[in-house]
Structures are given as structure tokens and as C-alpha cells.
């Protein structure tokens, strides 16, 4: 049983759907990546998963629990954590407080869990009293990931965790993503950079114009004529 299972999810803003009929499974211990050209609906899918957008059709199951119509704040309690692309930390609160909030899903003291995460992310431990808004962009992304991990989620959804980061920090973030997958968690990543996606993922979905264009293992996908999908170099190829 996959930790995250979606069937035929259709969602969008207002009346027009941006994504149509998306079915994605994510399993514990694996990195599932969603890639695709700009405007393909990757972030919209992530938002539909975590309850920011209510799907117009389809079902979303986390550990076999249907979370499709749940109030947004209840979804994390069922094991789904989310790291948005922008504005992903509480800027006016300290690093430690950001983590505490991530741990609110569970009752009881969270300081042991915070200590664990400071071991995984030593940079954050050093800056634990600093206001999150004063961290660099890369550090903010790591803090956002750490905050999501506070809840010990079984599924974590990361929306472009490396967008706008320097190459060095991009590697750091991907290393952590790989490590999270080993922590009994299913990882879903939305990504722009095809190269990195293929290198670090186990399973890949390519979205084009709001639909799941093609999906398969990273090895299978890298055999495809990706330039035609991404660059529209030959128009005919993308319509097959």
C-alpha cells in the first residue's frame, strides 16, 4: 500500500481546472518527482494534495485515509507534510519556534525531536534563536523541510525545494531529500531541473499542460526524447 495514493484528481482556481485526472502513488523510502514545463500544473497538484485547493474531482488517500474533503489543518495529522516553494517559513519567528510549530501536530514536548533535527541540520542548530526571515534563502528552505519533518510525516511534499538556490546549496538540499526518504517517509518533489530530478529520484511523472503526460522509473524516463517534451524542439513529438 502506497503512503500517498491519488486517483483522478482534477483541481484549479475558480471554475477552470488547471490539472486534470492526475493519479500518482508515492511509496515510503522512495523519492517520487514531478517534473514538467512551466505552467504544467505541478504546484497546483501539490496545493490540491495539502488542502489549499479543494479538488473538483478525484480522491486523495494518505495511509488509506481519505483526506480529500478534510479541513486543511487536519491533513497533517494524518501524516502528510508540505513545504511550499515560497513563503515557507514563519519569518517573524525564531528557527526554534518554527520547528515547535511543526511539532504541534503531536501532543507533548518536542524538544527531543528538535534536537534530532538540529543534528541532521547543524546550520539550523547554530542559528536556533535567529528570526527565520533573516536566514538565507537556502537555509530557509532547509528550515521549512525540518519544520515539516517535526511531525514525523509518512509523506512529505516538497514544492521546488531548490528554486533560486546556488548550485552548492542545491546539492545540500538534494542530499537531505535522499536522506529523508531513508527515514521511513515517502517523498514527493516538484522540480524544474530535469537533470537533478532524474539523478535523485526513483520514480518520475512528467506533467504537460495539466495532465500526467508520462511516468516511469527514472531510468525509463531518461531514455525518452526529453528535449521534445521540454523545449518543444519538434512540435510533433509532444503530441504523441
Amino acid at each position: 500500500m502506497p503512503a500517498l495514493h491519488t486517483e483522478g484528481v482534477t483541481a484549479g482556481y475558480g471554475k477552470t481546472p488547471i490539472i486534470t485526472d492526475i493519479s500518482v502513488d508515492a511509496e515510503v523510502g522512495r523519492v517520487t518527482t514531478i517534473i514538467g514545463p512551466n505552467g504544467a500544473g505541478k504546484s497546483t497538484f501539490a496545493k490540491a494534495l495539502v488542502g489549499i485547493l479543494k479538488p473538483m474531482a478525484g480522491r486523495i488517500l494518505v495511509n488509506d485515509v481519505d483526506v480529500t474533503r478534510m479541513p486543511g489543518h487536519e491533513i497533517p495529522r494524518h501524516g502528510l507534510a508540505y513545504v511550499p516553494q515560497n513563503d515557507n517559513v514563519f519569518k517573524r519567528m525564531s528557527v526554534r519556534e518554527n520547528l515547535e510549530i511543526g511539532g504541534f501536530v503531536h501532543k507533548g514536548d518536542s524538544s527531543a525531536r528538535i534536537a534530532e533535527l538540529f543534528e541532521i541540520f547543524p546550520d539550523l542548530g547554530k542559528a536556533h534563536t535567529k528570526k527565520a526571515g533573516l536566514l538565507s534563502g537556502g537555509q530557509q528552505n532547509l528550515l521549512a523541510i525540518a519544520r515539516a519533518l517535526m511531525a514525523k510525516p509518512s509523506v512529505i511534499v516538497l514544492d521546488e525545494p531548490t528554486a533560486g538556490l546556488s548550485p552548492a546549496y542545491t546539492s545540500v538540499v538534494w542530499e537531505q531529500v535522499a536522506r529523508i526518504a531513508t527515514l521511513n517517509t515517502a517523498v514527493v518533489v516538484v522540480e524544474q531541473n530535469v537533470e537533478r530530478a532524474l539523478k535523485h529520484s526513483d520514480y518520475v511523472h512528467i506533467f504537460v499542460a495539466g495532465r500526467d503526460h508520462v511516468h516511469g522509473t527514472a531510468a525509463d524516463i531518461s531514455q525518452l526524447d526529453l528535449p521534445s517534451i521540454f523545449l518543444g524542439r519538434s512540435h510533433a513529438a509532444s503530441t504523441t
Partner: protein
Amino acid sequence: MSVADPTTTIDATLAATAALRCEGLVKAFQGVHAVNGAAFDVPAGQITALIGPNGAGKTTVVNMLSGAMKADRGRVFLGETEITGWPSHRIAQHGLLRTFQLSRELGGLTVLENLLTAAPNQAGDSFLNALLRPGLIRRQERENAERALHLLAVYGLYRHRDTPARELSGGQKKLLEIARAVMGQPKVLLLDEPMAGVNPALIDVLGGYILDLKKDGVTVLMIEHNLGVVERICDYVIVLAEGKTLATGRLSELRQNTEVVKAYLGEVMDASATH
């Protein structure tokens, strides 16, 4: 073709007839540089694409060129005139118009009124004229309305002329944005991702409109992700990466440029493209 010095990649003749030029544009948000020294010429009468990976600073550059944002440093020239630091309405009055990535229709106005708002030099924007010279205004409004209706017909929006703009579909709003900017009689038109979120059939239609604008002598600078579109309609390409101008030239030339391919796709793509 050299990568290090972008200016050498532009024909000297084109540089001499730049319709829009920027030098050393810098913009930082809370200490993070979104744009860091971008500099390029937009050749007059051509269609130029502004491309680059996510976060390269393309929209920020367009915002600075159009006056929607103040640059921290750098200069902008519209033809011979330096427009650095001008407010956006003044830049628009001097012939540089723009569209937005997410359509910004004037929702409470009808489609026709959206276009009429953009008509330049309206006597009726003055209170005294509004009060004392209704004849003049009526004549000007009729002329503008005729032109606007022609444009709406060309852009396939004529049937919707009396519809409030907020009721249009996403694709129709894109068309309206461009038609409205054209109504402003631009010398230079900046299009921020005109094809984003538009269905494939409409992409071809929009491409046709942009080519028509070129025929009418309008200089176009467009942010575009779809390189297929760039290949078909753009004459020149400016590549931004990490807030700097990485390269300029024709797309066919840039495809051979490993720096550009790497910035855009990563090494794996490069390998798969060559085999």
C-alpha cells in the same frame, strides 16, 4: 560566439538601432539579488525573446524596464531617451507598453472599455474638457472606439465587446491584454509570458499576432519558455541566468552554446540531446 561578453554577440548594426537598452541593472530583495548586472540591447523592429531558467530574474527585469519597479542600480534607455527612474505611466506615455504574466484585466470595465482606457492622448481625461468640450470628446471617443473594435475583431474578441472583462476565460484575458497594449500604440511592447497557461491552438494564433505587430513596426521583447515558439517567431534571443545576461544571439547559435544548454537543462539533457 563569445559567452563572456554578451555585447559582442549583437551585430554592430543592431546595437546602433536599439529600441530599448539597459545597462547594469541591479535589484535586490531583502539582500538577495534577483537581478545582478543585466545588460542588453533590444533591436528595433524585431521580435526578441528573453529566456532563462526559473529564478533568472526575467520578470524583475521587465518590471524595471517598464517602471513598475525601481532599479537599485543601472540605466534604461528607450530609443535615445533615458527613462531610468521614470514612473510607469510616463514610460507608457512614451511608447513602452507591457503585459503581465498573470492577466490583469480591468475587471469592472467592458472589453471595449479596457481598450479605450489604453488609447493615448485622451482629451477627456481632463476635468475641464469633460465638462466643457463634449463634442471634442465624442469625436475622439468615436475614433478610438472604431479602432478598438477593429482590434477586437482581429483578436477575436468582438463578440465579447460589451462583456465585463472579469467574465472572460483565461485565454481570452491573454488576448485582451495584448490587444489593449496594442491599442496604446506602442513603439516597444514587452510581453511577459504571453503563452503561459494558453492552450496549444491559441499559442499559434498568438504567435501570428506577434508577427503581425512586427510587420507594423513594433519592437517586441517577450519572456517565453516555449523554445518552439521562440524558434518560430523570434529573431533574437537574450538569455538571463542568475540575474545576469548570459548570452545573446539567434536561437540556433545559442543551442550550440554549452553554457546556455547547461543553465537551462542541466548536463543530462545535454548528453541526451547529442546522442
